[in-house]
C-alpha cells in the first residue's frame, strides 16, 4: 500500500488527500496516516503552518498567527 502511494506521488504536481484516497480505494484517514509514516521516514516533509517556529522572535508573530490560522496539512516530496 505504501509503495502504491509513493508511485502515485511520482508526478511532480499537486494532490489532494481525497484524490489519493480514491485512487488507492481507501479512506482519507488511512492516507493521512501513511503520509505521516512517509514523513517520519524522510520521504516527505510536512510544511509547517507559516508562522509557527519560523516566526519565533518576530515582532509581528502575533498578528501573523491569526492570518495564517489555516488547519490544512501540507506535505511535499523530499528530493532523494
Amino acid at each position: 500500500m505504501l509503495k502504491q502511494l509513493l508511485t502515485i506521488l511520482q508526478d511532480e504536481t499537486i494532490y489532494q488527500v481525497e484524490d489519493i484516497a480514491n485512487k488507492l480505494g481507501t479512506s482519507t484517514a488511512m492516507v493521512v496516516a501513511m503520509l505521516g509514516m512517509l514523513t517520519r521516514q524522510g520521504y516527505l516533509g510536512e510544511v509547517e503552518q507559516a508562522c509557527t517556529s519560523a516566526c519565533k522572535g518576530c515582532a509581528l508573530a502575533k498578528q501573523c498567527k491569526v492570518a495564517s490560522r489555516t488547519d490544512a496539512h501540507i506535505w511535499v516530496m523530499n528530493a532523494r
Partner: protein
Amino acid sequence: MGKSTVFNMLTGLNQHVGNWPGKTIEQKTGVVNYKGYKIDLVDLPGTYSLTANSLEERIARNYLLKNRPDAVIIILNAATLEHSLYLLTELINLPIPIVVGLNMMDVAKQQGFQIEENVLSAALGDTPVIPIVASHNQGLNKLLDAAIEVSQHPNQTLSQKYRITPSDYPHQEIQKQITSKIQGKLPAIYPTDWIALKLLEGDSEITSMVKESAPETWKSIEMLLIDHEDTFLDIAGSRYAWIERLVRAAMTNPRKGTISLTDRLDKIATHPFAGLLLLIGISGAVFWLTYTLANPIVYWLGNSIISPLALWSKSALGNAPFWLQGLISDGIINGAGMVLTFLPILFFFFAAMGFLEDIGYLTRAAYVMDRFMHWMGLHGRSFMPLFLGFGCNVPSIMGTRIIEDRRARILTIMLSPLVPCTGRIAVITFLAPAFFGKSALIAVWGLVSLNLVILASLGILTNKFIYKGKRTAFIMEIPLYHVPNPRTIGLFIWNNLVEFTKRAGTIILLVAIVMWWLSNYPGGNIENSILAQFGHQLAPLGHCLGWQDWRITIALLTSFLAKENTISTLSVLYKIEESGNLAANIASSLTMPSRLGFLAIQMLFIPCVATVAAIRKEAGTKWMVINILLLLFISFSAGAIIYWGLTLLGVK
C-alpha cells in the same frame, strides 16, 4: 494519546519523575495499589512505531525489550485509529502481553465514529480492548483489571496473540534466512526474528548492533539485504493494509452528511478551472463589498468629522502661535487623522478575509492557486507566504523561512512585495472614487490584477531563464468546511485594526508632522518651503509621468515609510482651505492617464521600510538593493507606459 493522563489518574501522587538514563527525556514511574496488587507503572514516551527514527522510539522499545514488563497497556486514540494502530501491529509480535486502551471515546463519539471493540479484540487474537475516556477517569479500572488478567497468564495470551500476523509481507523467506544466520549470536534480550525484521526494515540502530556483535555473519546478511531494497515499504505497507481491513471491520462510517456537502462544494471549489474562476469571482466580490460598504463611511468620516475638526481646532487655537495651530490642525488632525478614515476599508476587508478563512475556503483557494504556481515553476511552499502578503508584506517575507531551498526562497522574497498589502489597497480604494467616478471599482480591480500579472510574469520569466525551479509533489489535506465562528473572525479583525491604529499613531503621525514642518518652513508658506524646493528638483520626473504638481511626487516618496503616508502627506499639503474633499482636490490636479499611472506606481513602488528591513534581514543587503532597484524600474516603467499609452490613445 492520553498515556500521561492515564498514568496520572492511576498513580495520583505516587509518582517519581526522573530522566531516562543519559537522555534528557523525562521518565515517569509510579505505583498503583489496586485490589491487593502493587503495580509499578511506567509512562513511556509517545511513539508511532518501534523503528529507531527518534529518541522517543528508541527509549520505548529498549525499555520493552530489556525490562520485559508483565503487561503493556497501549493507549490508542479512537478518533484517529488509523494513526495509532501502526504501533499495535509492531507490539503484537513481541513476546509481551498487551492490553489495548481505546482512549478518546468521547471525541470519537462526538465525531460520530462507532467502534466495535469486540471486533477489534477478536482480530487481535482476543487481546483485551477497553474503551476509556482517560481525562474523565472512565474505564480505567477495567483497564487495570485486564492488565492484571493478562499478566497472570502470559503464556496463554502470548500464544493467542501469535496466531495473528498483522504483516503479510513478501519477504518472509529472507527473514527466515536472516533469522537462522543470527541465531544465538546476539544478546538474548532480542527476539531473533524481530531482529531480522528490523534489519529488513533498515533500522539503523539494530543494523549497527548486528554489525558489531556478529561481524562475521554481517557480510552475508548485507548481501541479502542489498538484494532486497525497499523492503521497508513492503513491510510497512502490509501493516497498513492490515490496519485498513481492521478499521473497516471495526468502525462504522461517520459524518456522511457533512462529507457529501463538502464533496459537492469542492467539486467546484477545487476544480482546476472552475475553481480558478470561483476564486477570481470571490476576490472580485471581496473588493466590491469592501468598496461599496466602506467608501460612503470613509467619505463621511473625512468630510463630516476630520475636516470640520481640523477647521474647528484652527479657530479654537486662534490665539495660539502659528506653528502650534498648524501642527495640530494641518499636521496631526488633517494628516494622520485622515489616515484613520481608512478604518472602515480595513474593517470590511479583514471581515471578508476572516470569514473566508474561517469557513475553510482559503485552503481551497490555496489549492487552486498552487496548481497555477506550479505552471509558474514556483515552489509549492511559496504559496502560503505570498498569500500572507495580502495582509502585510512583512510576515509574508518572514514566512518564506519554511522554504528550504535557498534560491526558491530568495525568488519568493523578491516577488513578495508585488502582493498588494492592505496599506496599498486602502490608498487606492480611498482615491479611486474621486479619480475614476463610476469606473472606480473596475480601476481598483485592474490595479490589483496588474500587480498579480506582473508577479506571475516575473515568476515565469525567472523560472524560464534564470532559475529553473525544481518541482516537487505537493500534497494537501483539505479540511471540511465549517460554520464560521464570529469570535474568531472578530478577533482577527480586531487584531489587524489595532495593528493599523498603532501604525497611524506612530510612524504615520511622525511623518505627517515632519511633512507639515518641511512644508511650512522657512516662512510659513508652502511655495517657499524646503519641501517645495526639493519638490521642484524632482519636477522633471513628475513631468515624465504627467504630474504637473510636485506634491504628488513627494507624497509617493513618503509612502516608503508607510504606504498610508501617501494620503496623510497629500492631506497635509493640500490644505483644508481648498474646499471640497481631499481626493477630489488631488484628482483635479491630474489628468485621467496620469491618475491611473500614479496609482499603478503607488501599487508597484518600493515596499515600505519595514518590508525592506525584513528583506535585508532574510535575504541580505545585496538582494535588498536588487529588490529596490527592480521595483523602482517596474513601477516607473508601468506608470510611464500607462500614462503615455493612454495619452497617445487620446484618453483625457
